């Protein structure tokens, strides 16, 4: 901590003297705007990065962190705003240009060439001779104390090793700015420690580092400065030592969020907890999650909060029959649905709205009706052999009306709809099979505020018909607004359950970042 302290002092001095700041500012982005279609992702981002700084960048899902980094790397181009490097305005139109300016990004998902050796992966794209590269690579590896078998094929590497290769790739380019996008999300404890040590080493060499993370502990461990992104703007920015954990949690929350109690909730509903639960999950284990137990009662909305990678989606898809269950049981209305095929799970009364609307949800080049009724094809409602066109029209029209989906006709291709309307169609599809339980995975990600309100109204209306909902969301506000009860997952396990009056954003956020217990302790001390 001492070393970090002196770093912070240095940073502070840099900040106070203008004459020092100019030569030391490596990278500066000003007023960056970026929208995808009607969806504004970045709304005027300004950030500075100096020599030897570790800028910890935190923010919820969809806050725009990855988009900002992709703009800096030249993968996307900004709609507005400018990037300056060492005081000079630059135009980064492709990754090659970013590399030429000594910027390197270690992406969240490593982008290695799986069929090449580690050596080839690292040295590809350099102009120097092979022996020269080899000796340089050796010296870089010696310097940070890593040993990797350079002749192994990249496809045999663990995710941590892949991350190491990516970092070596970056170091070989003598970067002035190194971007690490959630490098520890898939690492074990030891690997995290060695990575953090490496980051500190790089920092001492004067490299500017942007460190994106979901783990607040890491911010304090290695960050010198911190910036919080929320909804496309920087809400909080400053030196790390100026903040406490609570400050950061607060910065992650919407500005108008009241910390003491939830607001804007739907009318209180009485859930009859003496009934048998409609969904009973016991000791459920699978890939990416472990030992999950919870109940859902009829007509209840249960929020499931957590950060990306906490295992929520994996748990949901495993219940839905998309992956192998490794233990435990899932009972739907008393019937065992553990390990059933997706078709059977749907027909037994559970449906799922996927997190990844584009890859798993939509048939983009097909019409509204075809999308809405796609989950009904296995039931006889759509006809035995021939398609029942009348029923198809009736069902899809009913959801279009009920959800107030804006379409020009039932045959309009859904790829051309706005995100909110697309999501309504996917939700309609899940409810078309008359389920008893629906799991919604990030139902409002990437859709605008108005559509979000529509989706909430739809969910409350559906709940009133007696359907139970498990709402997976990284948007804590959403969990607060909709849930009767809330669960929080962290690193593959349910770490906390909150009753209705405890569901407030700061509790959820703290638990999702794995610091809820610590906080409670702090209070008692």
């Amino acid at each position, binding site marked *: 901590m001492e070393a970090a302290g002196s770093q912070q002092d240095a940073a502070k001095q840099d900040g106070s003297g203008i004459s020092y700041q100019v030569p030391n500012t490596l990278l500066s982005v000003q007023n960056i705007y970026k929208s995808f279609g009607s969806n504004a992702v970045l709304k005027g981002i300004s950030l500075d990065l100096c020599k030897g700084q570790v800028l910890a960048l935190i923010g919820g899902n969809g806050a725009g962190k*990855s988009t900002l980094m992709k703009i800096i790397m030249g993968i996307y181009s900004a709609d507005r705003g400018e990037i300056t490097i060492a005081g000079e305005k630059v135009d980064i139109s492709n990754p090659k240009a970013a590399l030429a300016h000594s910027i390197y990004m270690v992406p969240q998902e490593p982008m290695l060439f799986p069929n090449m050796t580690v050596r080839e992966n690292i040295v590809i794209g350099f102009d120097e001779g092979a022996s020269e590269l080899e000796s340089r690579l050796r010296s870089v590896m010696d310097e940070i104390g890593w040993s990797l078998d350079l002749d192994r094929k990249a496809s045999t590497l663990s995710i941590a090793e892949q991350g190491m290769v990516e970092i070596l790739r970056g170091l070989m380019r003598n970067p002035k700015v190194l971007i690490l996008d959630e490098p520890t999300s898939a690492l074990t404890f030891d690997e995290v420690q060695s990575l953090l040590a490496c980051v500190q080493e790089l920092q001492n060499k004067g490299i500017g580092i942007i460190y994106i993370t979901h783990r607040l502990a890491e911010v304090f461990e290695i960050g010198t400065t911190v910036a919080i992104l929320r909804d496309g703007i920087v809400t909080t920015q400053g030196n790390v030592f100026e903040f406490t954990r609570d400050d950061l949690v607060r910065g992650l929350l919407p500005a108008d969020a009241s910390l003491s109690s939830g607001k804007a909730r739907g009318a209180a509903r009485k859930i009859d907890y003496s009934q048998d639960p409609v969904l009973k999950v016991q000791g459920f284990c699978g890939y990416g999650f472990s030992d999950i137990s919870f109940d859902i009662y009829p007509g209840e909305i249960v929020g499931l909060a957590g950060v990306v990678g906490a295992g929520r989606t994996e748990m949901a898809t495993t219940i839905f029959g998309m992956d192998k269950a490794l233990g435990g049981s899932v009972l739907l209305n008393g019937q065992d649905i553990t390990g059933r095929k997706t078709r059977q799970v749907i027909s037994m009364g559970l449906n*799922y709205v*996927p997190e990844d609307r584009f890859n*798993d949800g*939509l048939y983009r*080049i*097909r019409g509204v009706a*075809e999308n809405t009724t796609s*989950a009904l094809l296995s039931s006889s409602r759509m006809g035995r052999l021939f398609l029942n066109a009348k029923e198809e029209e009736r069902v899809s029209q009913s959801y279009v009306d009920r959800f107030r989906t804006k379409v020009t006709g039932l045959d309009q291709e859904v790829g051309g709809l706005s995100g909110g309307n697309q999501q309504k169609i996917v939700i309609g599809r899940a409810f078309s099979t008359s389920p008893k339980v629906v799991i919604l995975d990030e139902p409002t990600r990437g859709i605008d505020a108005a559509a979000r309100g529509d989706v909430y109204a739809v969910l409350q209306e559906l709940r009133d018909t007696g359907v139970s909902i498990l709402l997976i969301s990284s948007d804590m506000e959403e969990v607060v607004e909709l849930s009767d009860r809330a669960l929080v997952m962290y690193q593959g396990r349910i770490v906390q359950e909150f009753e209705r009056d405890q569901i407030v954003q700061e509790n959820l956020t703290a638990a999702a970042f794995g610091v809820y217990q610590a906080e409670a302790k702090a209070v008692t001390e």
Partner: protein
Amino acid sequence: MSRIKQLLTRGQASWNLILIGLLVLEFVVFGAANPKFLRPALLFTSINDNLPVFMIALFVTLVMVTGGIDIQVASLVGLTSITIGVAWQDFGFSIWAAVALAVAICIVCGAFSGFLIAYCGVQAMVVTLGGSFLYSGIALLVSTLSSTESYQGIGGFPDEFKFIASHQVLGAVPFQLLIYVALFAIAFVLLHKTKYGRKVILTGVNAQAAEYSGINSRLVIMSTYVLSAAAASIAGIVLTAYLGTAKSDLGGGLTMDIITAVVLGGTLSTGGKGSIIGTALASFAIAFLKFGLPLCFKVGTQYLNIPVGILLVAVIVGRSAASNTGFVPMLRALFASKVGHGPNVKA
């Protein structure tokens, strides 16, 4: 310009109109150049040569709608033909039993390739390439079981078999055209009117989303190869009856015509969109082109690959050029940002 783009990228209905326009143009141009072109009897003969190919194209459309490709069908035509010949002539099967045997064998072949594609996750191109070697090889081996030398072909089929190709309904309409119409109706109803066809389409758009909708996308994919193999065997039967001889290499060189008919008919090579009507219209456009050019402009029949090839290249380039601008790249960009959010490797 944007209108053309629209026609190329969206709306099967407008694409079908273009194809009908092409057909009308052919009739006008060829008819004006040589009025013989418009004689029904001649027209029917001209179609007859190509009909078996286009029967296959109808069902290869289903395969391509799932996003796959089938280049083994041509070899199955030969396998059907030689199986009928050998089973009938050398093993004493009745002609209809021989036909049934040939169809059954083709279905097994299609199921085998389809299984490897759908359940083992091997690329359709590679499997059907291997299949084209294997099944044409088997056809050759079957031909060695016969007492007749394979290059001669087995002939002398009974009249009731030759009836398939020689009979003319109402004195003018060839019987095999009726078979084509029947197959067209089956394929059309199957793809556009049944739940099965809907599953084929949805699987082709997004196989993963189909799994999330509870559709058994693997079974659907496999079944399309069974159907295309069955169509190939029917084409083999008709072609054998038409030519009057059974040979093992009967279907050689048909692949390009089949793929051209399907792609020209508006089926996306990436899957998810396709039209049986489009394939049929494209088939006839190609057939009349191949008939009209030699008849009216003295173009040698061997040169006919040029216009057909140009047609294929022009359509595929035009379509991808049209779809590479507009909101598709935007969607792709969104897509890319999605991919970054979490693991999505499907087991």
